[in-house]
């Protein structure tokens, strides 16, 4: 099961980050498929835990280099066709989902093909001067990894908690991180510096004490707020400034949620 989980993890990331190389209508389809793959990943992990075993977030190396969008879509369709699962209701569902996804991807591959610029490292963003681009690049590198890390940490924690309130808080934080990851990946693709975040080390999510993790997490959220505020002050572009103010305010509520989780752990 761990091997299936690793293949699924890779497929999720390939669909998710691949989406940002496509034109808007195709991008939305791939992002929806990526979310379905994430749910599969979580359900498989849940099965492992239910059987009294542990799992980790190891993965295969996601492929991101393609000549054009046609090659990417064909690759993903072939990858889906190659997935293999045991029998059972969960895997029947997964097989059915992936059969449909493969059909849609094959259709999309025939529609049109564009060259891929999201990984070009061109560092070009209309309306932004060099200093702001530099600050933005640094921010995106750190935060894309961080949001991915948070999704994995909260998913892992959620699968191991029997406390309903904690489970709901983790669920909220996962949704929030997905939105941030999507927004930051969109900016990174626009700048030509899209990348799949590095693997998350086990020591991060297999922590000894949830309370320590939450306390450190609150400090990280505070630091992220400050980074957003600094970016908002430095960047001249009105849309980006408002975006970073908006993210800053979202982080404030994350701190509330994490403090609430901390209270639950003290009970």
């Amino acid at each position, binding site marked *: 099961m761990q091997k299936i989980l690793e293949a699924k993890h890779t497929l999720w990331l390939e669909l998710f980050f691949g989406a940002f190389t496509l034109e808007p209508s195709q991008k939305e389809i791939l992002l929806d498929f990526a979310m379905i793959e994430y749910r599969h990943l979580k359900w498989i992990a849940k099965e492992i835990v239910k059987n009294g075993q542990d799992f980790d977030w190891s993965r295969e190396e996601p492929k991101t280099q393609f000549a054009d969008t046609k090659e990417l879509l064909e690759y993903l369709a072939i990858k889906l066709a190659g997935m293999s699962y045991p029998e059972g209701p969960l895997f029947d569902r997964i097989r059915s989902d992936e059969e449909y996804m493969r059909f849609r991807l094959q259709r999309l591959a025939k529609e049109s093909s564009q060259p891929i610029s999201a990984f070009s490292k061109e560092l*070009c963003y209309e309306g932004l001067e*060099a200093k702001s681009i530099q600050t933005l690049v640094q921010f995106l590198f750190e935060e894309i990894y961080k949001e991915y890390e948070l999704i994995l940490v909260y998913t892992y924690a959620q699968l191991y908690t029997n406390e309903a309130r904690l489970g709901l808080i983790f669920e909220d934080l996962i949704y929030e991180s997905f939105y941030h990851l999507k927004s930051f990946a969109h900016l990174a693709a626009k700048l030509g510096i899209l*990348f799949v975040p590095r693997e998350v080390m086990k020591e991060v999510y297999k922590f000894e004490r949830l309370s320590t993790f939450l306390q450190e997490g609150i400090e990280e959220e505070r*630091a992220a707020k400050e980074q957003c505020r600094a970016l908002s002050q430095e960047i001249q572009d009105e849309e980006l400034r408002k975006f970073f103010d908006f993210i800053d305010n979202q982080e404030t509520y994350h701190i509330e949620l994490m403090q609430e989780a901390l209270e639950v752990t003290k009970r």
Partner: protein
Amino acid sequence: MEQETPTIDPRYLELMINPTNYGEMKEYDAKGLGKNKETGEMVVIYLKVDPKTQKITDIAWQTNGCGTTLVSGALFSEEYKGKTLQSGEEFTKAVFEKIKDNPPPDAACGEVVARAFMAALKDYEARARGEEREFVEYVTLSCPVPTGEDDAKNS
């Protein structure tokens, strides 16, 4: 507005995207953890060592840290690979001396990598004595949490 070319070192950019020697090592001869209690930042280093020559034949590392830690980890791992354990230790001690003069966040990011290596050395020695336990070394330099005020002053 006219687009200027950003001054981001391409090598730095590449290391942020594909850090050298990054990953987990399943079978290793030594493992060490470096931790920053203030920030929760961690680095784990795995070593494969030739028992005859004491040379580091392979190295892998991982971090949950920031961009500076990521680049430091990549560059340090390149330095460590091929060195003997003793010259790795000497290199690390020289790093501790040099980074004291760096700006505090950069210094702490470099130190957490170096601490992980020192912890791995202790683990290697302990394994030679037949002991098995986790070795953790903590960062001593301060890494201040960034504030909007400081950034405004620096800009």
